[in-house]
């Protein structure tokens, strides 16, 4: 993708609020022969004017910057956002979920190419399963993504992660692009990938992307168990996974575009256990299968009106076997299947030059089956309606929206949850007080809730069908600034800083029942979170060939349980007061070097802030070298990485050790075929 393409893409993706698809699939571009090191700078130059005008905090990682983050999966990349805690059980196959501003991972919705990845079973998305190689951009919106032509689902969470996969782009008259490569590294990582993009006509293109990941995952770790220092090898950490996706990207006329995507992922993995005294080995295994097909269509009906439609069907399977538990029918073997049907229609209308409105309606149908004892086979139907108004004036942008939710629950056996109706608001603005001063003030308020998941409601021996939704109230006040400079060492600079207050009520937690086997879920806790976060990004160049980019993020959070009867002033588990990251990358000609540092402060593994729950701060240094010649028809690139350079031994989750120093090498080959030739053959 050339610079121009990429920046155009990003521009559309973020800043044309009426555009949901956002991807100029078949746009033609000129060949650009500028030095590659300037790409990042140019991308940011185009991004900045609009980034600073966002009414909610937004963080974006895209293109080359994303590829440089010492990351295999999306999970590794989100660590560089402020306000984010990644829950990571360690290793390549370990579960990795995102927690934004201490609201809990179930309050975050994850969107893949604009459509939500649902998980009605437990409400969380394992970001470790999404390879960065296939991503064009990852962004995090607190509150919600601004815009009027968005599905109602986009308004239905406390924070959203948008993952945008690569789209076909044809340069220099190419008719087909191919990209093949392999990554290999420590712990037996072997990760070959292949993607091809084919131009099928003037208005149609296809992209196929596939990938295999295989790793033994055995890594050595050192830790103190009791008061002895022990070194051991992590067991049962193997993973095998396969992903294939195929997309069709069409443009009927200039004003219409559509996309259809089929996705399949399957994996088998060992589940490493907590490292406890006298017990390091584990035998639990898990198999996953996720398949979906989704389609999007957008049409600009007139200068004032646009329409967007989206739909999806997904089918997920999960199988869990525990050979350490023998039941009267053999090893414990749990199988879960779930289905989702999703349909969305949205229309937007420009009422006058500065006021636009959007209306959207979404329908979801979720079902789940399991071979669990006394499983009730639930079905949930959700209807969402959203109305949004957006004011856009030269120095003021404001958005207000209302979301209506109706949930109907049905079970085949036992007690079903009560049906639910609710109206929730959100309001946000961005205001530049002085035209001469490039400083913007923004604020948002949002009330939203998450429905109890099927596991919360119906999991045998812990589910509780009396549960109510868990509410999140968010207040945010921030400042942004962004500048492009024509000359000098610094070419772009943008910064944002926010303070926020979140309150979670009716938090769904597990509480003890009759005995330790019989926990139950209940609406119990209340949590208040006070935080501040800041981001600074800088890019520039020294001379003609040396370019650099710098990224800094810092987060302070005080997340206190305020449930009646709770011990006062106790930071909730796994939330550090201080966390942050720093990345610097430099390119000289075809060679690039980047370094990143991630810091997570001290935390507690359980409610009480006492010594026995204390978890050490951790910080890792990652270093990588890239070699990528200037864009040509054929291109070979090479990456060498050292992660956790100082070999720090740490846990993100107590007793789940993380890998120490590890290495990766990546090799990829990219080539094009000219359009004419393709036709002749």
């Amino acid at each position, binding site marked *: 993708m050339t610079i121009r393409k990429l920046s155009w893409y990003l521009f559309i993706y973020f800043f044309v609020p009426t555009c949901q698809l956002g991807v100029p699939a078949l746009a033609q571009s000129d060949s650009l022969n500028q030095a590659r090191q300037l790409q990042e700078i140019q991308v940011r130059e185009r991004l900045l004017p609009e980034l600073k005008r966002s009414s909610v905090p937004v963080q974006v990682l895209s293109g080359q910057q994303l590829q440089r983050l010492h990351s295999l999966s999306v999970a590794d990349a989100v660590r560089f956002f402020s306000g984010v805690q990644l829950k990571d059980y360690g290793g390549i196959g370990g579960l990795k979920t995102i927690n934004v501003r201490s609201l809990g991972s179930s309050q975050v919705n994850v969107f893949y190419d604009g459509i939500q990845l649902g998980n009605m079973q437990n409400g969380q998305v394992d970001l470790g399963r999404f390879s960065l190689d296939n991503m064009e951009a990852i962004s995090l919106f607190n509150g919600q993504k601004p815009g009027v032509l968005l599905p109602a689902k986009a308004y239905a969470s406390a924070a959203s992660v948008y993952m945008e996969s690569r789209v076909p782009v044809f340069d220099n008259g190419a008719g087909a692009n191919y990209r093949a490569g392999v990554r290999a590294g420590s712990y037996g990582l072997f990760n070959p990938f292949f993607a091809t993009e084919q131009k099928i006509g003037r208005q149609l293109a296809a992209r196929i992307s596939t990938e295999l990941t295989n790793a033994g995952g055995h890594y050595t770790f050192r830790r*103190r168990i009791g008061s002895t220092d022990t070194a051991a090898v992590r067991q049962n950490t193997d993973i095998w996974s396969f992903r294939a996706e195929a997309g069709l990207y069409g443009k009927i006329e200039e004003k219409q575009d559509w996309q259809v995507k089929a996705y399949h992922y399957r994996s088998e993995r060992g589940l490493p256990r907590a490292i406890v005294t006298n017990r390091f080995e584990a035998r639990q295994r898990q198999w996953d299968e996720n398949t979906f097909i989704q389609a999007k269509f957008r049409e600009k009906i007139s200068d004032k009106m646009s329409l967007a439609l989206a739909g999806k069907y997904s089918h997920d399977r999960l199988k869990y076997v525990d050979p350490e538990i023998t039941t009267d*029918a053999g*090893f414990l073997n749990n199988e879960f299947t779930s289905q989702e049907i999703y349909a969305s229609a949205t229309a937007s209308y420009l009422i006058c030059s500065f006021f636009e409105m959007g209306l959207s309606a979404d329908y979801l149908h979720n079902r789940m089956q399991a071979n669990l004892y006394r499983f009730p086979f639930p079905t949930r139907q959700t209807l969402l309606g959203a109305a949004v108004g957006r004011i856009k004036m030269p120095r003021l942008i404001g958005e207000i929206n209302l979301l209506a939710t109706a949930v109907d629950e049905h079970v085949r056996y036992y007690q079903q949850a009560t049906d639910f109706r609710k109206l929730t608001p959100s309001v946000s603005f961005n205001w530049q007080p002085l035209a001469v001063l490039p400083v913007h003030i923004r604020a948002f308020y949002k009330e939203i809730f998450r429905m109890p998941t099927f596991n919360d409601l119906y999991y045998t021996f812990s589910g509780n069908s009396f549960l109510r939704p868990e509410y999140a109230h968010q207040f945010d006040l921030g400042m942004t600034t962004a500048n492009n400079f024509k000359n000098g060492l610094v070419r772009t600079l943008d910064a944002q800083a926010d303070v926020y207050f979140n309150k979670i009520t009716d938090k769904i937690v597990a509480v003890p029942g009759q*005995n330790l086997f019989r926990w139950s879920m209940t609406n119990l806790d209340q949590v208040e979170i006070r935080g501040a976060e800041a981001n600074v990004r800088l890019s520039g160049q020294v001379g003609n060939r040396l370019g650099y980019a710098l990224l800094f993020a810092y987060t302070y959070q005080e997340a206190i349980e305020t449930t009646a009867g709770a011990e006062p002033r106790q930071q909730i588990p796994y939330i550090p007061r201080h966390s942050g990251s720093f990345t610097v990358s430099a390119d000289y000609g075809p060679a690039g070097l980047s370094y990143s540092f991630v810091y997570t402060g001290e935390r507690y593994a359980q409610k009480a802030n*006492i010594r026995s729950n204390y978890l050490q701060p951790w910080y890792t240094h990652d270093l990588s070298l890239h070699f990528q010649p200037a864009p040509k028809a054929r291109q070979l690139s090479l990456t060498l990485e050292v992660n956790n350079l100082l070999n720090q031994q740490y846990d993100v989750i107590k*007793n789940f050790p993380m890998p120490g120093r590890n290495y990766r090498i990546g090799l990829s080959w990219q080539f094009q075929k000219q359009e004419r030739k393709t036709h002749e053959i």
Partner: protein
Amino acid sequence: MKFKWTVCLLSMLLATAACRKDEDSGPGAGEDLQHGQPETLTTLKGFLLLNEGNMNMNKASLDYYDYTTGVYRSNVFEKANAGGSGLGDVGNDLAVYGSKVYIVVNGSNKIEVLDARTWKKIRQINLDNCRYITFSGGKAYVSAYLGVVGDPAAPQGSVSEIDTASLTIMRRATVGRQPEELAVVGNRLYVAHSGGYSPSNYERTVAVIDLTSFREIKRIDVAVNLHRLRVDAYGDLYVSSRGDYYDIPPRLYVIDTGTDAVKKSFNLAVSDMDISSDTAYICGTAFSYQTGRNEISYSMLDVRTETQLQRSFLSDGMDRNGKITLPYGLAINPENKDILITDAKDYVSPGKLHCFSKSGKLKWSVATGDIPAKIEFLKKTP
């Protein structure tokens, strides 16, 4: 200017990053002493309390209360065994036999044998998913959920016989699925089964093992999902059934070991029980599907007449719901009949230990580790 600010913040971050405290010096270090009420007893010098700790947290811990000084000391195992690998994950049972302390650590698949005077480790006996321990004739008997781990055709549990002199496993008997508590009457070992790995098909029996042949000789049908099993002075077994958490309520059954048959039952949920002289003290928690809450009860039985006494053993309203969040472990001081009750709270926070006089008045309370579960009294040594 902005750049300077970044550099400044960055250096601050690096400065904070540079300090990583030693794991033993986190907050709360040295807060391990608390006070009860000193008193002089003729036969007892103190008691040990085992905190289970949450699964995967590796937080089992042992506390000690000294009657003479009134001092409650936490983490005595760690301190007596510095340089060791810790007590481990989920301390499930604690017992004193002769001059040794036995701790069954379920999640760590081991039994720790300690010197009862110094709490120094004598030996570690590895036994997969071990649960409860009892003693007779110089032997220890330990139940384990699965006799063989990793064989899909072997859902049965086992009981292992350990020689308390050599501290090695001598014999092993196969019993029913997921054996829990066990007790010896005469030459017979009685083992309660839960069958908890197969909730659709709970076990409902007590196994009877002949100690000479160390073979199961019969089963006594009782009720689903059995747990506690205690013996009184009259050769009767008190066995608790946890019910199925849905339709079958928890109950307490009495088995006559003369006839090996159930002779009586009580409509009681049993979290823990202790039989002291002729009285069984019982605390129970029953989850109600109607209210979605736990109902807590404190009851007493006269084991001689096998009748329920119509009063609680706690006074001043301490037996009301919420005073003790989740009564979990219970023990009666055999000398002065003080009642010790632990509160496991929400299972994920440090618990509490309350000491009540025999009339039910609260004498003192201390904070414990997570999930305080089992109490064992230590006799004065001549």
